[in-house]
């Protein structure tokens, strides 16, 4: 569209952000990227008992061009990683990635030659969901948190400011191995 890129920051841009965010989160279509056991739990969340249709997400779009949310459900092997990247590249902006399960988040129990240790080596991830496999309720919780992110996503001039702020914070944080003594 580009309209939101041109608006100056202020109340008008905020209203446009809210409207766009509401529209985006209400019918975020997931792309089918079910790989292993987590895929079955993802299908179970789309089924009758843990209904994803109440969030507008029951249409799992096979074509990545029509999808908004890629739920990487399952272990990503070295052979599958280029395919994952290609599907991610084929999705149109705005897109979100949910790493479902420990195998997608960090390699899980498979710390070996065959599994990519976390899909964030391949695609940028917005939400990590641990579990082996995570229960459908946990998946819905993660999806709702992504909906929050989508709802509050900043556009245009606000987005640029936010990026600068995030970068300043990131430059100051200690790497994980050095953040000793902190429980949170």
């Amino acid at each position, binding site marked *: 569209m580009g309209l939101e890129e041109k608006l100056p920051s202020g109340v008008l841009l905020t209203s446009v952000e809210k409207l766009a965010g509401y529209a985006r989160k209400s019918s975020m279509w997931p792309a*089918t*990227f*079910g*790989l*292993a*056991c987590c*895929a*079955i*739990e993802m*299908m*179970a969340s789309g*089924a*009758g*008992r843990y209904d994803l249709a109440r969030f507008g997400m029951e249409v*799992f779009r*096979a074509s*990545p061009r029509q999808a908004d949310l890629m739920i990487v459900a*399952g*272990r990503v*092997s*070295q*052979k*599958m990683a280029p*395919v994952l990247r290609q*599907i991610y590249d084929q999705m149109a902006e705005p897109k979100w990635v949910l790493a479902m399960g420990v195998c997608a988040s960090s390699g899980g*129990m*498979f*710390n*070996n*030659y*065959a*599994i990519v240790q976390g899909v964030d080596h391949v695609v940028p991830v917005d939400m990590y969901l641990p579990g*082996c*496999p995570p*229960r459908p309720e946990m998946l819905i919780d993660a999806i709702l948190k992504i909906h929050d992110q989508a709802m509050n996503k900043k556009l245009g001039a606000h987005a640029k400011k936010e990026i600068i702020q995030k970068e300043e914070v990131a430059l100051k944080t200690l790497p994980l191995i050095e953040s000793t003594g902190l429980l949170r």
Partner: protein
Amino acid sequence: MSTDMFSQSFDTTEGKVYNVSGGDWETVQGGTPGETSRMVINMGPQHPSTHGVLRLILEVEGETIIQARCGIGYLHTGIEKNMEYRNWVQGTTYVTRMDYLTPIFNETAYCLAVEKLLGITDQIPERATTIRVMMMELNRVSSHLVALATGGMELGALTAMTNGFRDRELILDIFEMVSGLRMNMAYVRPGGVAQDLPPGAEQKIRDTVQLLRKRLKDNKSILVDNPIWLLRTKGIGELDLTGCMALGITGPVLRSTGLPWDLRKTQPYCGYENYEFDVVTENTADTYGRFLIRVEEMNQSLNIVEQALDRLKPGPVMVEDKKIAWPSQLALGGDGLGNSLEHIRNIMGTSMEALIHHFKLVTEGFQVPAGQAYAAVESPRGELGAFVISDGGTKPYRVHFRDPSFNNLQAVSAMGEGGQVADLVAAVASLDPVMGGVDR
């Protein structure tokens, strides 16, 4: 010709080959009219209808498949090598994730092989064996439900999908009650099962079985004589007995040719010789026959579950030998599921041996005498065999699973070639491969 470096054309012994990447159809059509165009199409690893991360490389002429090949390995996890660095009981948690729709079968095959090497096959308590049988048959029902649900979804029958998953939730509730998890339970351990059935489980299972019988009848009536379903599955994906024998196919695909080969009857394990059930066969050797077999097998499994419930007698669920038996007696406490207070009182206050056993078993694990063993179970997809090699230590030397889906997928070429692309989808759905088991 196109100057795009991604879509070139080059000459081969078979004629000119064009690499098409979109938007350049005109250059391809420049060929002689009337010449049939052969295309190599990738039904890639990410596809809604290929039952998981299966890559089908199809050479098609129009809509007819000339050659079909499978590309697998997109889910290869290195489970077998990873198990060589974990002890024998931890192997259960790895093995359970191979064929993720039938975790109990994977665990049972592995534990039967390990128990063979330990030499304690006769000392497994009867209650443990009965619980294993019950959980296996419930797993068979839930696996067939997913097979029918995803098969239906791939062919467009979406109600089959929602119904199948709805009924599967009932079984997952039982799994959760008994083992704590819905999937990938790591419940069957070498020597028995991890913990006993909680109070109230037997009644719940009986009620669920009754409810399932009714639901299965309803689900069946959606598809069984449905004209569209018949058109899509009758005569599709045929593989006769010779083909099955040559390709080493077992399971519902073999039984659809008329041969009643079921390991539970022919080479019984876990006491299956004492249960009354029929081996379901059809003689049409096509997708519809396999669908009917799966539907009826679910009913037979529910019969076995009821017989197992009747057979349950109070007793231990772990082998007596304290040097092998998994020490935990779990109970639900204030902070979740953990070692029961009685067990802690026992090991900390009363018995030094119990403390030593608990410590050694959890940190080091038991040692399995050196040797090689193979144990096969009849999983919903065919013969699931666990090969285990031990070098006398606390970690497996080599574990290999002869997974039925890996073997059965070789039949895709035989089933698909000469047919149409849509029929290939039905044929693959009738083979019911689970890519976790194929790639391990």
